[in-house]
């Protein structure tokens, strides 16, 4: 049975089990992976998987189940369990599936991994790091090729097929000099091919250089309120309060979101524009279909500081009466500013260049505190030295209202495009 026919069989099994509305998503994946552990290439992996997720709505009640595998008796059993789960649910008029849309096949036409190129890129990275940064320890590196075929069907007639392939790389490293060890740091990206050396991608060369500098950190004394410049790789730590928490279903349905009354209103400085572009050339590993079964579209989340959309699913939209977002977010692209990194630092009397944070989960109100890792002290406009045992505390909604500047240069991570951003009103406390 072909994968498409298996998906059709899944949908029929849900209907046969009694679903009034049925949805199934069959995903076939193949992953080829190379690992580096402690400066040595160590393992090569090939993983195959077939995952099928079933959703059933019966009498206004919803249930889900999933399995991996493709045997007919298992499919029938797990489809029936989705319907049984639905019967266990209370009825809720907000439960629904996507309406019919024109059937489509999406394909990014990246099909086959180049295993030799993957091996060559990793061994070159190790060789380059050994020569250029002899104190660097590549604790771990992972290079993947991911192939994914998704069939999304529902009983309203939704019929989407998505084929995609991409590479992703993750490097995790520190520096060692005798008994001295620096804080670890990491970076990651996705790519359409393996042509570019890893060290030349997403600031990895800079991060390797900084790692050796960070063997000699200095603690800060005292406490002050100042500005921080957040690097592109670190920005997600602050941005995700907005994009994965405060304007999503859970916070809006429960009414705990600080942004619940802010649609169409200013929630960030005018310089800040955030788009979600899952079907853009700027994004390597986007997506074509939302988890609810809608064809994904690019959307603007925040434009010139104004909140343009909540990130509500179909259920969240039905529950709150607010509009559904036209994708499921992620694939962030932040518009560039007009400053160099030096120009961002120039007006700062006392502050930090923050490259990584190790911290608490933000509260529902957006209060955050954590240790600034791999970070540098800024004084009178100069980036001076790496710091240790330095904590930052801030309120994330207030931070985004107090953006001092955004860099012209941005880093393309494959799944996002971020600049350096300078924020005010952050408390920095040392020893």
């Amino acid at each position, binding site marked *: 049975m072909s994968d498409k026919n298996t998906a059709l069989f899944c949908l029929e099994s849900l209907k046969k089990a009694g679903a009034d509305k049925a949805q199934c998503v069959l995903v076939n994946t193949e992953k080829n992976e190379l690992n580096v552990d402690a400066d040595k290439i160590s393992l090569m992996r090939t993983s195959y998987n077939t995952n099928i997720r079933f959703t059933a709505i019966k009498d206004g009640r919803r249930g889900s189940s999933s399995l991996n595998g493709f045997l007919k008796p298992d499919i029938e059993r797990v489809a029936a369990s989705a319907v049984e789960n639905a019967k266990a649910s209370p009825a809720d008029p907000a439960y629904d599936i996507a309406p019919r849309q024109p059937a489509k096949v999406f394909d990014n036409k990246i099909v086959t991994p180049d295993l030799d190129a993957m091996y060559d890129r990793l061994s070159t990275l190790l060789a380059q790091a050994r020569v250029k940064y002899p104190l660097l320890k590549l604790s771990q590196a992972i290079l993947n090729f991911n192939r994914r075929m998704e069939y999304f069907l529902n009983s309203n007639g939704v019929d989407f097929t998505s084929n995609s392939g991409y590479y992703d790389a993750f490097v995790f490293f520190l520096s060692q000099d005798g008994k001295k*060890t620096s804080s670890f740091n990491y970076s990651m990206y996705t790519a359409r091919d393996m042509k570019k050396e890893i060290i030349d991608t997403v600031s990895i060369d800079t991060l390797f250089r900084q790692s050796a500098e960070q063997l000699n950190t200095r603690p800060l004394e005292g406490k002050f309120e100042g500005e921080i410049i957040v690097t592109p790789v670190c920005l997600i730590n602050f941005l995700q309060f907005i994009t994965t928490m405060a304007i999503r279903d859970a916070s809006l349905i429960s009414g705990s979101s600080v942004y619940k009354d802010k649609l169409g209103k200013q929630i960030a400085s005018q310089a800040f524009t955030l788009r979600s572009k899952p079907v853009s050339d700027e994004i390597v590993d986007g997506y074509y279909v939302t988890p609810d079964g809608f064809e994904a579209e690019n959307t603007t989340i925040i434009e010139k500081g104004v909140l343009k959309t909540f990130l509500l699913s179909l259920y969240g939209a039905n529950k709150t009466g607010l509009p559904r977002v036209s994708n499921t977010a992620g694939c962030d692209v932040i518009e560039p500013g007009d400053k160099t990194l030096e120009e961002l630092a120039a007006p700062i009397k006392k502050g930090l260049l923050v490259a990584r944070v190790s911290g608490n989960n933000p509260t529902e109100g957006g209060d955050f505190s954590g240790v600034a890792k791999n970070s540098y002290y800024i004084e009178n406009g100069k980036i001076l030295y790496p710091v240790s045992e330095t904590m930052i505390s801030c309120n994330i909604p207030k931070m985004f209202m107090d953006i001092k500047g955004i860099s012209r240069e941005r880093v393309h991570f494959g799944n996002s495009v971020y600049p350096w951003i300078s924020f005010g009103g952050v408390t920095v*406390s040392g020893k």
Partner: protein
Amino acid sequence: MIKTDLKEYAELLGGYSELRLHENRNTNVMLMNGNLVGNENSSSGGLSARVYKNGAWGFASSPGAELDTAKKVMAAASRNADFLDSRLKKGLPPLPAMAAHGIYDLSTKKPRRSQKELVDFISEIDGYIASKYKGLKGRRVLIKNLDMEKAFLNSYGSSFYSVTPRSVLMVFLFAEKDGAVVDHWEDVSSVGHFEDVFTEPSALFNWVDGVYERLMQKVSGIYPEAGHKECILDASLAGILAHEAVGHTTEADLVLGGSVAGALMGKPVASSMVNLTDFAHTAFGKPCHIPIYVDDEGVEAKDAVIIKDGVLTSYMHNRESAVHYGAAPTGNARASEFSDEPIIRMRNTAILPGTDRLEDMVASVDDGYYLAGWTNGQADATSEFTFGVKSGYEIKNGKFARSLRGATVSGVAFDLLKTVTMLSSEMNWSALGMCGKKQSIPAAMGGPAVKCVMNIGGR
């Protein structure tokens, strides 16, 4: 239920190679303000093969449990090992042979509850909260159950079958004070199927009352002053300190990767009253939450005594790292999903209790904090750590004063442990943790109350 014995595939094995049939089954049920937003059960499983060739590893996995799948994954793993060996040419000798066997099925003997019964269970708790605490801003009640079932066979003759269930029930409550949302959550979690861990919803009502009470204390609480303070960490914080800040730095693969503990073996790293162990399956005569008898490389699991009387005495090992360090394997290799290779993981990591009474510990602090419960934790290769703290109290002149709304604490573990001056005789374990080192896997952690000096992040 998967096959319990893989011996029929023994002829596929050679050199050092292993086959693992592995299925994870999850049940998630979640009510948010009375709305059922999660109602799902899922399973994910299949066969994996791992092959060692002259120092290179090949791995492959696929759904299925039958002979053709076993042949497919073994062939792919062998191809991958050959690919790497032909390029790396490490020429390392075979891994030492050692075998272990066993059947460890912790499944309940009681009839299993249906999904509807689980929904009804948390609906009753949710209804109790909604009717009793009407002033709340929001509430969430959820169940997260995970069964890990594994059958294993390797070319050195090791084999095991295990079923390790874990059950978790969590309550999140939200209140509002001066326009700001204050939240608090707690869990009841344990090894075992839901039927063996929980009885009736009403048995949890007292606990729910306590969660509400602690939320109200946070609502009227303050944020702590930033700076170094004498602190009493409650048992759950001691557990996350053991796991995040010390445990990770002493996993042998991370030591090889550059952790600061590489230079500290045999040296004092803590006050002489501090002992820290990663227990394999049994601690103080009782079964642990993550009981590992034979690990996912077919090695008998043993306790790793990491700190003894303040001195670093052992790392946690798999087969390969034990060879590197000339140490005995500790059986710490575990895989999270069927598609994951086993890597060095903690199991049940704890600071061992001392002899002090908590009342005496609090009474000994003139100006400090009692810190209770963790929200998350991260640590560095340097042993510098950051934990979110849920709640607590000021301690003034040996007595609890104002309550805390939460805090973030940080420090360098091997410095902090040298400031430990008291350890309570009582200890607690938590089964809630999911450790995220490459693969996300349950890990248990525990400890007594600890008196030490810690850096508090204030406002």
